[in-house]
């Protein structure tokens, strides 16, 4: 009897506590994200930990020596080939994100400011290239840039060049052109969203205070759409550093990027630890570059005032 009498309030308390716990906002929040969180944990965090662990081990023919070593990082950072490949990857991704943003901005601006009632139609049109596979889109660039390609025959037909140029395909420029086209939509959308949020009366106010169209754009619209520009740049920059398919297909010998080297280490060369070290190095460098980009755009934004 006594035990039961003592047990009931205790049970009641746990229930009350459990109810309070279930009603708390943070618990509800965690409950809501838990499926995605578990998914991300298993498929993102764990693999990264595996890669990180491998990067400190050594490959011995068929098995892996689990003693801690920094040798892989030494190779990744000092071997000229990997250094060059990393630099080239960074250069390509920076150039691609620069041109993508530059080309995407006017499109986003047009849709946002002059799209009128057809905004959603325009956005829909932008997604049309995604109806075909990425491989097909890269292949079509091969058709355009190739030796007997559309561009060469066009230029020859116009009499601008006498013989087909080989400078168009199988180099880093081809990779840049292809990637710029492929990532355009991912840059247009964030810029469009941030332009949509720019209060149109602010542009009117700038005009009212004496600014012509260009000045009001530079002093109001552009600074206020900077968040969109930053996210567009990052969305393009981060994945393109590690792009593997595009350089493989249109890059040729001069267009090889770091991801191709990493793939080789995990594949044919069968040196997972070195591949892992290259991956980790690339990740760190990309993070640094992304951070630097954010800081630079913010500084430019402040300068515009």
């Amino acid at each position, binding site marked *: 009897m006594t035990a039961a009498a003592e047990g009931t309030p205790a049970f009641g308390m746990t229930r009350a506590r459990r109810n309070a716990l279930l009603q708390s906002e943070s618990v509800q929040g965690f409950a809501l994200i838990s499926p995605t969180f578990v998914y991300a944990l298993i498929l993102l965090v764990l693999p990264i930990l595996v890669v990180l662990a491998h990067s400190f081990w050594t490959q011995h023919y068929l098995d892996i020596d689990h003693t801690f070593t920094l040798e892989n990082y030494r190779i990744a950072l000092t071997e000229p080939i990997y250094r060059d490949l990393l630099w080239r990857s960074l250069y390509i991704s920076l150039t691609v994100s620069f041109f993508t943003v530059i080309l995407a901005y006017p499109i986003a601006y047009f849709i946002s400011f002059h799209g009128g009632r057809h905004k959603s139609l325009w956005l829909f049109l932008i997604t049309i290239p995604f109806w075909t596979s990425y491989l097909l889109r890269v292949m079509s660039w091969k058709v355009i840039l190739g030796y007997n390609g559309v561009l060469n025959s066009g230029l020859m037909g116009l009499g601008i060049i006498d013989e087909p140029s080989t400078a168009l395909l199988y180099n880093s420029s081809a990779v840049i052109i292809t990637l710029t086209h492929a990532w355009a939509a991912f840059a247009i959308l964030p810029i469009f969203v941030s332009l949509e949020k720019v209060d149109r*009366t*602010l542009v*009117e*106010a700038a005009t*009212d*205070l004496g600014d012509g169209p260009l000045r*009001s754009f530079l002093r*109001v619209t552009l600074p*206020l759409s900077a968040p969109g520009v930053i996210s567009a740049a990052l969305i393009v920059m981060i994945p393109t550093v590690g792009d593997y398919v595009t350089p493989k297909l249109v890059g040729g010998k001069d267009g090889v990027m770091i991801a191709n080297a990493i793939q080789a280490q995990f594949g044919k060369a069968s040196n997972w630890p070195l591949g892992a070290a290259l991956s980790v190095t690339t990740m760190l460098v990309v993070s640094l570059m992304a951070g630097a980009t954010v800081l630079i755009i913010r500084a430019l934004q402040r300068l515009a*005032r």
Partner: protein
Amino acid sequence: MPEPTQAERPQSDRPQTDRAMIEIRSVTRSYGAFKALDDATLTIREGEFFSLLGPSGCGKTTLLRMIAGFDNPTSGSISVGGQSMEGIPANRRPTNMVFQSYAIFPHLNVEQNVAYGLKRLKLGVTEEKRRVEEALAQVSLTGLGKRLATELSGGQRQRVALARALVMRPKVLLLDEPLSALDKKLREQMQVELRRLQQAVGITFVLVTHDQYEALAMSDRIAVMFGGKIAQVASPKEIYQRPVNRQVADFLGGMNFVKAEIVEENAASLVVDTLGFGRVRTDKPKAFVRNGGGATLGIRPERLRVLWDNATAKFEVAGKVVERHYFGEITHLIVEIPGLEKPLSVTETNDFGADDIPVGTPIRLAYDPEALVAMAD
């Protein structure tokens, strides 16, 4: 006798010139078949506090935006300071605007907002700073220069918008419902301040509002607009006391309407017969156009006075209280008058116990025949 000169007498004590600052000639703005503004002609004088008053959709904002240059007339012309505004873009007009949403630049602080338009003038650092300080002082924002727009209250944002426009020293300051987003108390305070500021700087102010009390309290003259047309342009007193038609009378507070028969009409006056008020001689309004034998007489509720006990007046009507509404300092009485189809509404101060008059009490009301205003049917 009513004084016709009253209409022309400005409320302000500051001497005004009679020179035109803004001339709007037969301006029409159509959107397809819909005319947002229909053949509006209007002259706004230099140094005047002018209000465009009307319900939403009456075309007042359209007119203001055309003066600013954000919209163009379909036909007709607008000139500011004697210069035609045709083909002149908004950024080169001698006007500045205070937007309804204030449109404070969120990425700039208060000082940078105010200095925005000055940057282009290349005044030099000291002169620019001096003018910004001066403008901030004018709107009592001294010391808040470094704040961001997001850190300001509604009233403060309004002041920043005002300073940002005033610092440009425009010929005309355009205000698009600047007080509508403020709460009642702040709005009343800002009305007084705006009026004071206008007197101090002497710039022509054009205010767009749908609030009749705001327009009456602040303006030298008011244009009342309905359905894209200007119904009446006059001083607040004239508009309130001598509205040209029922629509204007109704929009500017309560008005009792009484049916009348025209007995005699000449150039200056009308003699009409009414059931409740008998035969009345009134001034003929300028825009009066006779439409058959009928007319409407109007009288404001506060121009009817309750006659207590045995008091008598030269002009009085007798009736019975049918409703009583208490409003603190005043009471609204609804009084049925034999012969009138609609009961009269009477506003009486509560000093003498109007709030205690029981419903059903017979009552006599005194009025001044000059308070009766004739309107075309």
